[in-house]
């Protein structure tokens, strides 16, 4: 079978190419239905990665967040027609110590291999997770991967941070901040949850939080037990240093924001306060499974996430894909979803 793969060949230009897939092989074939655009995709699309990286990675199909329908499973694990979320991390080995998303040998869709912008995605059984019917919103399900990254961070935080979790602070008023804060609200319902950002309108979306603060007007004596950095980019350093200022001794700073360049951190205070800095990136199968369970058990989480669904763009050809990416650039907050035909 000749599978259409929609690759980014250079910034802002997609072209269709084909790969050969066979029905006799072991692979499961999934038909993508709803795909969600991430900032990492935008960095490729807009040519914001370095020239070397672009030269090395393109042409490549983008998108690592998406759901689909199983069409063909020779192993019989999945029935044709089952709705699944696709896991972009593709490990090639197992370690008892290092999680699959930190193994340097793992591949990742839309980064080191073709992403989900394909007619069919050929995958292994352990790279898809069933979506129960109780999660009725396909648009929300489409960005499960991004929320699973926050879920992964919180799982690691839960295992490693000290037990006092009375006041938790999230720095960042964007999507990552919203997802992290929402999961914290669900997993630590009794904690005081504070959000720190720059845009009061965006901060207004965090209706489930106990308090929101503009980062330039944080009371000096305000202290959190643990802090979550969800900003990244050029501001990451300022944010981490602000968390250092407002965190209790022995607290954990979890970093979720991606920076392109090295970030100066005031390590003297990290040492003086005995802080832990927890880096987290991407997610693995257990995180997807845990999150899907959390969605099923907490329908209000899905309901809050519905607010984050931005434009839903039908994509029938490369022209539509360009439209979706351009609309995504202009969005304020939320996720742009491609309804994949």
């Amino acid at each position, binding site marked *: 079978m*000749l599978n*259409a793969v929609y690759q980014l060949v250079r910034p802002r230009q997609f072209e269709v190419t084909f790969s050969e897939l066979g029905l006799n092989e072991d692979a499961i074939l999934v038909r993508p239905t709803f795909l969600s655009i991430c900032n990492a995709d935008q960095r490729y699309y807009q040519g914001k990665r370095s020239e070397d990286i672009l030269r090395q990675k393109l042409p490549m199909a983008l998108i690592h967040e998406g759901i689909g329908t199983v*069409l063909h499973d020779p192993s019989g694990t999945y029935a044709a027609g089952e709705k699944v979320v696709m896991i972009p991390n593709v490990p090639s080995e197992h370690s008892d110590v290092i999680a699959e998303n930190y193994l340097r040998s793992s591949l990742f869709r839309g980064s080191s291999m073709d992403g989900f912008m394909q007619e069919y995605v050929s995958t292994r059984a352990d790279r898809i997770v069933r979506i129960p019917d109780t999660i009725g919103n396909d648009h929300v399900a489409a960005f499960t991967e991004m929320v699973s990254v926050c879920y992964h961070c919180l799982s690691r935080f839960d295992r490693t941070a000290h037990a006092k979790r009375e006041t938790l602070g999230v720095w960042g008023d964007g999507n990552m901040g919203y997802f992290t804060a929402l999961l914290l609200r669900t997993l630590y319902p009794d904690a005081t949850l504070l959000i720190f950002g720059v845009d009061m309108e965006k901060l207004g979306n965090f209706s489930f939080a106990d308090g929101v603060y503009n980062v330039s007007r944080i009371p000096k004596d305000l202290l959190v037990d643990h802090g979550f950095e969800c900003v990244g980019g050029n501001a990451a350093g300022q944010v981490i240093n602000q968390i250092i200022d407002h965190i209790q001794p022995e607290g954990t700073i979890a970093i979720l924001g991606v920076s392109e360049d090295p970030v100066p951190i005031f390590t003297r205070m990290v040492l003086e306060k005995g802080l832990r800095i927890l880096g987290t990136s991407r997610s693995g199968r257990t995180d997807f499974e845990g999150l899907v369970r959390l969605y099923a058990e907490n329908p209000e989480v899905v309901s809050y996430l519905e607010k984050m669904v931005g434009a839903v763009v039908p994509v029938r050809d490369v022209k539509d894909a360009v439209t979706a990416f351009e609309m995504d650039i202009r969005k304020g907050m939320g996720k742009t979803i491609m309804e994949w035909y």
Partner: protein
Amino acid sequence: MGKVYGVVLAGGIGSRMGNAEKPKQFLEIGSRPVMIHTLEKFVIHPGFEEILVLSPKAWVSYTRDILKKYLPSASNLVVLEGGATRNETIMNAIRYIEAQGALDEETIIVTHDSVRPFVTHRILEENIRYAIQYGACDTVIPASDTIVQALDNESISDIPDRKYMYQGQTPQSFHAKKLKETYEGLTEQERSILTDACKIMVLKGEHVHLVQGEVSNIKITYPYDITVAQALLGLETEG
């Protein structure tokens, strides 16, 4: 909803394929014959009750053999003998459905050239949807070249406005019973000018809806097309 049948037309005897020994549907792209690539798109689509493969009489056994080899687990493939013309071949498929007792007002056929292996899931999906909704549909792409009409084959009689011109591809999809009845209602003279199945409906003033095709949905007709197909697959081509 009625049953939907794939009708894959493998009628070509390969006369235009240079010195190739086999009809073009049996030539290989990548690791499989062109026809297998095409049929896999139908087999994997959950909408089809059966996929009827219409082959020239001399190639029926060969077709069965390669289906057994490449698609051993596909249980809904049926190889039938084609007719003298494209439309007679389609009628053979409809007669088969009728003989199964499955032909009713809602039965849909999605007819497709076996030599168009780049057909996409979306194109198949929209053919089924629009055939159900409108009774008939044709897959097309906007004409990229200006179309020149020469009724005497020597001088231009008209140059139609390109924005209304399209290039026909396949699939072409129909309510099977309606297509058969309309075809049977044509005179011999009307039948003699038919170039494809949609024209049966157009001649009788029936609505035929347009489905957006793809430039890549090429027909493997000439040796050059194999080169293009290999290039679309990112494979090295000979020569």
